[in-house]
């Protein structure tokens, strides 16, 4: 057995940015089965129109884009050929294109502004910088293909290099491909040197040859297509730009222009957060980019949240990681749902919760909240009902019975419905209704309500729960697993390694800690961090009120609608978009009715990763959605401890006087 990494946490590599090509391939799980007919793997290289991949933090955008990049595809070709370079070029040709991955970190992008220099000058310097960076990535790949003997050095240096040298302003004869590369690097070095000097002195940027948009990003491809025969037969140059949301607004204008006027043989694949476009403008004052006409938009969460195969996908994602740890691989422990348990056992959780309490019948006090009894129910009357509808071995059924009675059903009939349900009388309409309420509608709400009655937190554990909590964000699921494994390694390693399971208490702690950590992180978001923090907190508190309603009138409510005009408040709109960009809230993929029978509108939900902080359901159910007008939305984002402004509509209950008379 390989003892290195024997007990490594398989989920500790959480950032695709830091992964090398081999690790990307090791962890890669093709998501195209989920994407159905909307997009294929070949489309990534061959589809002419630029594609924008949007998704929240951790949805796998970087992993996705990096997978299609040249270094990873080279590694894939190597692995296919057993280590040789023999088929790299034919492998790339069969793909239909070469991916050039570009990611500039935020500090670099943000350094192209201020320091006393006019914005227009920075624009010119950034354009020059971007063109050189794209050029560098092209030359790097061609140089690598030459070194791998996939392209003829002689041919390249005879046709391609002289024309590129001329374009770059590199003088001299017998210029080599490496010289071209060095020229580009030196030009980039000049920009870095300028960025250093401008901080302390008034200095001008004077490059030996300035480049404007398209000069190199499109120009070099044109030369390559004309002079390198291997690139002539439909192989596309695919520029993969990651983290587009990090680009300053003025920088996006420059890149939007490239997107709009993309040339044959070149296309863009852009990865960005939701709402990551700061502008749709281009350099041309009358032109802007438009979805459908200039680019195709593809939102990761739309696919992942909706599709039941998301679970299968997560199982495969986790399996790829578990397989890398010998302690698990050797024992065939590569199914994450085995570690976490497939589903939570609410019945046992409820029984455990009540068992530990001094008073085990406190939940019957819920009856006092029924409008039927108008707070006139004394303890004798409650005991009277309790004797009829009690089911001590299953407190969840007791809570359901309480709700039934509180809604006007006779205790005896409620008991009959329960008994028929428990005895499996499938033909009984009463048993069917009871089954519907217990299994399909309220079971989770009953647990949340029960826990609240005893002032105990609801537990969050199991694969099913973690899938829901992750809200379609693969990175969140991995982080939930990472924390669970970490706690298990520390507190219960025997069970983890020998039995391949993690105690639900440890999973619960992982979910709660992550919720806290995510909320803290919200505070540090660059734009509107504190506003978004207040927003998440206020939403959590509001939904907690709904979900702990003693009569379960708003089961699992965690969605809302907003006034789409934002009352003309542009800053409020911007804050709201930033909340979406950072996945603090998520927009449902289709328009829905705010209330049954109401008009269709955009619906938003609080990211379910925060659920454990407020003992909220980890699911999103339809039904009631709270509507926030602009002023209330503003209050939610700027004030602490905002309460529900108006009472939500109440569910009607049938007044049954006979029942009141008999019990009170």
């Amino acid at each position, binding site marked *: 057995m390989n003892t290195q990494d024997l007990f490594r946490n398989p989920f500790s590599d959480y950032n695709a940015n830091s992964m090398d090509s081999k690790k990307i391939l090791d962890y890669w799980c093709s998501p195209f089965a989920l994407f159905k007919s909307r997009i294929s793997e070949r489309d990534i290289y061959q589809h002419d129109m630029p594609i924008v991949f949007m998704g929240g933090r951790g949805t796998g955008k970087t992993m996705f884009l990096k997978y299609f990049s040249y270094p990873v595809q080279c590694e894939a070709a190597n692995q296919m050929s057993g280590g040789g370079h023999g088929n790299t070029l034919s492998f790339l040709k069969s793909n239909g294109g070469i991916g050039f991955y570009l990611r500039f970190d935020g*500090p670099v992008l943000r350094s192209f502004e*201020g320091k006393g220099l006019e914005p227009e000058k920075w624009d010119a310097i950034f354009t020059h910088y971007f063109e050189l960076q794209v050029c560098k990535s092209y030359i790097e790949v061609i140089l690598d293909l030459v070194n791998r003997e996939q392209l003829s050095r002689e041919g390249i240096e005879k046709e391609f290099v002289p024309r590129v040298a001329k374009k770059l302003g590199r003088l001299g004869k017998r210029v080599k491909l490496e010289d071209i590369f060095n020229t580009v690097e030196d030009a980039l070095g000049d920009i870095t040197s300028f960025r250093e000097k401008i901080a302390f002195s008034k200095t001008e940027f004077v490059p030996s040859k300035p480049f404007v948009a398209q000069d190199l990003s499109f120009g070099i491809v044109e030369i390559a297509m004309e002079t390198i025969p291997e690139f002539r037969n439909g192989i596309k140059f695919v520029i993969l730009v990651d983290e587009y949301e990090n680009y300053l607004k003025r920088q996006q204008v420059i890149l939007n222009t490239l997107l709009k006027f993309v040339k044959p043989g070149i296309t863009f694949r852009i990865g960005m957060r939701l709402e990551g476009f700061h502008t749709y403008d281009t350099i041309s004052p009358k032109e802007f980019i438009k979805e459908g006409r200039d680019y195709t938009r593809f939102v990761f969460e739309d696919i992942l949240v909706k599709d039941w195969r998301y679970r299968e996908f997560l199982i495969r994602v986790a399996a790829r990681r578990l397989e890398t740890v010998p302690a698990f691989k050797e024992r065939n422990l590569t199914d994450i749902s085995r570690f976490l348990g497939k589903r939570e056992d609410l019945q046992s959780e409820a029984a455990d919760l009540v068992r530990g309490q001094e008073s085990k019948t406190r939940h019957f006090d819920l009856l006092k909240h029924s409008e039927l009894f108008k707070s006139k129910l004394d303890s004798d009357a409650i005991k009277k009902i309790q004797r009829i509808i009690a089911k001590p071995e299953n407190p969840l059924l007791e809570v359901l019975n309480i709700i039934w009675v509180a809604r006007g059903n006779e205790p005896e009939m409620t008991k009959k419905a329960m008994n028929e349900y428990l005895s499996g009388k499938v033909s009984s309409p009463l048993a069917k209704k009871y089954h519907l309420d217990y299994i399909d509608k309220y079971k989770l709400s009953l647990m949340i309500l029960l826990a609240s009655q005893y002032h105990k937190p609801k537990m969050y554990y199991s694969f099913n729960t973690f899938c829901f909590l992750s809200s379609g964000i693969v990175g969140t699921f991995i982080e939930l697993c990472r924390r669970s494994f970490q706690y298990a390694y520390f507190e219960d390693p025997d069970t983890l390694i020998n039995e391949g399971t993690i105690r639900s208490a440890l999973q619960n702690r992982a979910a709660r800690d992550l919720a806290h950590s995510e909320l803290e992180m919200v505070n540090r978001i660059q734009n509107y961090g504190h506003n978004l923090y207040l927003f998440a907190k206020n939403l959590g508190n509001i939904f907690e009120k709904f979900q702990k309603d003693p009569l379960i009138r708003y089961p699992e409510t965690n969605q809302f609608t907003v006034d789409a005009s934002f009352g003309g408040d542009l800053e409020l709109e911007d804050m709201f978009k930033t909340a979406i960009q950072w996945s603090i809230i998520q927009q449902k993929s289709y328009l829905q009715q705010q209330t049954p029978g109401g008009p269709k509108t955009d619906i938003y939900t609080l990211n379910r990763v925060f659920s454990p902080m407020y003992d909220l359901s980890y699911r999103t159910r339809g039904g009631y959605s709270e509507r926030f007008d602009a002023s209330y939305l503003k209050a939610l984002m700027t004030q602490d401890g905002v309460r529900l402004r108006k009472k939500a509509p109440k569910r009607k209950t049938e007044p049954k006087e006979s029942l009141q008379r008999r019990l009170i």
Partner: protein
Amino acid sequence: MRPLNGEYHNDVREYDYVLVACGSDYRAYQTLRKSKDFGITFKNVLIFDFEERHDYADAEMRKAYQSYEELALNIKPVTCSIKDPSTCVKALHDSEPNLHDAAAVALDISCFTKPYSFCILKYLKEQAKINHITALYTEPMSYVFAEGLFHSYHSTSGPLSIMEIPGFPGNDIRTTRKTLVVLLGFDGELSSFITDEVAPNDTTVINGFPAYAPKFKDISLINNEKLLSSIPRESILYSRANNPFETFNLLEHIFQRDSSAFINVAPIGTKPMALGACLFALVHPSVRIVYPLPTEYANITTQKCWYSWSYEIPLRIN
């Protein structure tokens, strides 16, 4: 590196200039208050008055902030913005031409934000052509942990933006990999933010040990658990929390070990460690310094004063 503890009365050192940051932490003016005891005198005191720190609602804090006015010294305030060290140091050229000819300059790093310390040091080296400075530093007696010892220290508050410190962009030309060295601090979220932004191929952390107090090194480990669990054990290194030269040596070692890497340093640990990182970046301009720039800093992050130190910093090593 020597402690300023009153044992140098017969060896009084005179500085033409000392540069001090205004602050409401007690240690902000400790070297000015105790200069006689410490055996140092200052002809000119340039005190950097940050506009963001003007509107203290708390009267006690305001009083503490302005208490430098009561010191009988030749003090000249320099109004500046925390967010823009570049403009501030550029203005020094015109406002303090004599600084360029000063024979002895001291910089009290106790209450300067790290971007400011870095910018000033680079300015003194590159623009003022000064070869050597004395860095003064007063250790805090303790840090402010609002809600208990762990997880509640925040040297900054509010939103963050990861920036290159102006003048320290480094140079990634002809490098093959990106390495991030984090000088570990208590504020665990900072290291995660920086790592996500910089996206290095590999990360090394340097924890302050021995720390000012034994518990501090554990707090920084616990608060940065997420980052630490994702890097190999051999990438967790230690350097004395109050010794910039030890940090410098360690960074040199990392640099020599892999000179083909583009090294990024995030100095979010103690100020003396950051001073070591600054010295290192001055020696190696190819090194980039990244730092989380907050919209606001916490008003008071430390309590009382512990030891004060002076460090002789050569600005031109090679």
